[in-house]
């Protein structure tokens, strides 16, 4: 996908991922613990269409031993997967509303799967925007899906350091407010990504008049057991693995760690 992010498709051999009665094999925003025997596991948000029963896609940024080992795999190699874990975005709340999705860099996977969901159920949503920023055009992931997305939703891309052939926006995601026309009291917002996103929030969503309770943020922590026991992913009084990873913005704000 980019210099240090690879997209993996995990397909079970001889069976399919089980779907719930809405046909979803996971809720956008939920995560999986994916790994290799002998190396370990790490948490990844599902990135593919949640209706796709044959495989689950995840975006893997090379950061530690597990992700480095995954990067070395070839087509057909075995991986371990367990999940889905966590709550995911509150899809029912999103229905019937305008949707603004804001993310940066490699925070896109859970948003990508949410987009796939929205497109599959397009009639249930109002105006839908994706605001996606990255350092360089190469760091914008899922490039191959933009054409498809743009047919159904408004995709606004921005980079800090453009290449000569870059035609999108330059600068912070937060400068894209002008592009957005929504009904703030009937809007749901999905965000994913660390620190810089908070600034994006201050500068985009607040000026647009969107209340904190309508903003859902997917948090990143060191999810390890996935079942609310091992304590690695706690933030304040919450477990990111079982209470999250998607929180109201005001919940995130009240957490100090």
């Amino acid at each position: 996908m980019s210099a240090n992010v690879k997209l993996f498709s995990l397909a079970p051999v001889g069976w399919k991922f089980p779907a719930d009665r809405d046909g979803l094999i996971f809720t956008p925003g939920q995560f999986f613990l994916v790994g290799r025997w002998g190396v370990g596991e790490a948490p990844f948000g599902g990135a593919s269409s949640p209706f796709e029963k044959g495989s689950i896609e995840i975006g893997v940024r090379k950061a530690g031993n597990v992700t480095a080992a995954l990067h070395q795999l070839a087509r057909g190699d075995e991986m371990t997967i367990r999940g889905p874990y966590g709550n995911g975005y509150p899809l029912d709340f999103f229905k019937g509303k305008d949707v603004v999705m804001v993310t940066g860099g490699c925070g896109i996977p859970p948003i990508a799967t949410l987009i796939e969901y929205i497109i599959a159920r397009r009639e249930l949503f109002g105006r839908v925007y994706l605001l996606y920023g990255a350092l360089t055009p190469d760091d914008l992931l899922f490039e191959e899906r933009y054409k498809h997305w743009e047919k159904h939703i408004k995709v606004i891309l921005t980079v800090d350091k453009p290449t000569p052939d870059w035609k999108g926006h330059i600068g912070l995601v937060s400068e894209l407010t002008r592009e957005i026309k929504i009904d703030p009291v009937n809007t749901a917002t999905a965000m994913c990504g660390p620190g810089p996103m908070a600034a994006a929030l201050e500068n985009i969503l607040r000026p647009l008049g969107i209340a904190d309770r309508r903003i859902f943020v997917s948090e990143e922590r060191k999810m390890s057991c996935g079942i609310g026991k091992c304590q690695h992913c706690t933030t304040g009084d919450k477990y990111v693995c079982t209470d999250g990873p998607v929180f109201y913005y005001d919940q995130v704000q009240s957490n100090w760690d």
Partner: protein
Amino acid sequence: MPRVISKNHIPNLLIHLKKSHDVFAPMEKEGEVVFGNVEDPTKVLLNYKTTLLPPKIYFLPPEEELFKVTNGRVQEEQLNNKFVVFGLSRKDLEAIVYLDQIMNKKPADTFYLNRRRAVTLIGVSEEEVGVPPGGDLILEKISDRYYRTLALTKKGKKIADLEFFEEKEINHKAKSHEATSKLDQILLDSELIARAIEWSRENYRQIWEHLGRVCLGCGICTYVCPLCYCTSTEDKTSFDQTVCSRCRKWDACTLPGFAKIAGGHNFRPTQAARYFNWFYHKFVRAYKEFGRAQCVACHRCQRYCPAGIDIEKVLEEIINAFQKAEPERKF
């Protein structure tokens, strides 16, 4: 008539149990009391303060292999032997019952539960038990010679039916419960502790900053705690890559890497933040999750902290400061 066992028969009981079970019990080691595999039943201690490590070592071992993969074939860990933990104190039994509740909470920790199912817990109390906290069988000392049985489960009943026990009327009563510690008293009000700790994070920072300069970050308080259950997993592979295993190991939230994510960001970068989290989990997060502080006042963390941090004094100070700053509202 109560069923009792004479003190002299206890070693015989242990020898009998050893025929069909591994039996673990408290014994002395260089001035410390530690749980160990019973070889000589006469070495088993019935009257002791606390063991160094709590009995959780048998249900949540310091290191356990969860899965083994041999040439691609995955095998979940198998428990072959049923075992007995003998000589548990009331507080340790209380902690086990709470840990059961934690691990049973959905989604449950099946590895822990498997071990719990394989064990028979036998408590020994030198003083009156009162409401039995849990376990399968408790031996309550009622005279210099006799222990009365309190069988709490079928497993416990089966043991109490063995020939080492007899029906006997004893005209003695168990020694009444010794005065409770200050910590026991503080723990009666989990809600107050939770509110005070939560308040202290911003309003009584000085204590956390101070403790951040005292705490050695060695993790001992969490290892000796019967209600700490942080773990990490670690995979291993044989040289020839044909055998790999996924192991689970004790971790400690007071260690620096505990909240570090891949890529390096640390959500708790200071010792003060990590030490606060230890308290926060025990007394606030636990209270919100289970309605009760995760502490049974076993005093191990006080006794074994090499820096001399005294949880009882810390709690007392915070609660006092909290009550002074925010006097109880009268409705």
